[in-house]
């Protein structure tokens, strides 16, 4: 079963607006990571939040983690057209004997209109 579920699946906003993407997961985790992927390109690591952390910032990115609800959110403030990409959450878990492989969500496709 899918570990990470993201919503919305697609998000279209105007430049300058904030974009919020959510991720839910099912098992206990070591950490949760957010990645960005431009169409057909590589995965770019954005931010990692450990299971004992609740919030983390990196530039225009803000990530929250609620382990009681098994959910995370990624906020991109003051979005730019260059932020247009797919955003994936991924969990690092020892569940089921996993040795650290990441389980990805389905991703949110963000479109920022100039």
């Amino acid at each position, binding site marked *: 079963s899918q570990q990470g579920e993201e919503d919305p699946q697609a998000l279209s906003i105007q430049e300058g607006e904030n974009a919020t993407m959510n991720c839910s997961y099912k098992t206990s985790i*070591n950490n949760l*990571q957010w990645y960005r992927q431009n169409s*057909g390109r*590589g*995965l770019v690591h954005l931010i990692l939040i450990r299971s004992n952390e609740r919030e983390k910032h990196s530039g225009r990115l803000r990530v929250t983690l609620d382990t009681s609800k098994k959910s995370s959110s990624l906020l991109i403030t003051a979005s730019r057209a260059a932020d247009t990409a797919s955003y994936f959450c991924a969990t690092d878990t020892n569940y089921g004997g996993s040795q650290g*492989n*990441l389980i990805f969500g389905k991703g949110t496709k963000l479109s920022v209109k100039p």
Partner: protein
Amino acid sequence: AAGVIQSPRHLIKEKRETATLKCYPIPRHDTVYWYQQGPGQDPQFLISFYEKMQSDKGSIPDRFSAQQFSDYHSELNMSSLELGDSALYFCASSLGGQGARVNYGYTFGSGTRLTVV
């Protein structure tokens, strides 16, 4: 800074042929992970190696095999290719041990785009 290097960047093969993808991890990283991402899909874990031994296995078909060599680079060998194998194949590396991985995460390569025709 050196990143994870994957080769080739693009590969076109015919059905039933074989393909070998290569991954060179970041220096001093001793753990390698392989992922497959089909069109419009999220990346799916295939297999991982730590210190040249297989450490975890995901949804890797029996037609695929992989290994990690003494210099820590890894190769993914794919035989009897099928149309459905067309995908982006990513390699990621990390420092071994849960402590390092939990705190510092992974670095992904740019991927190999395999097209089976």
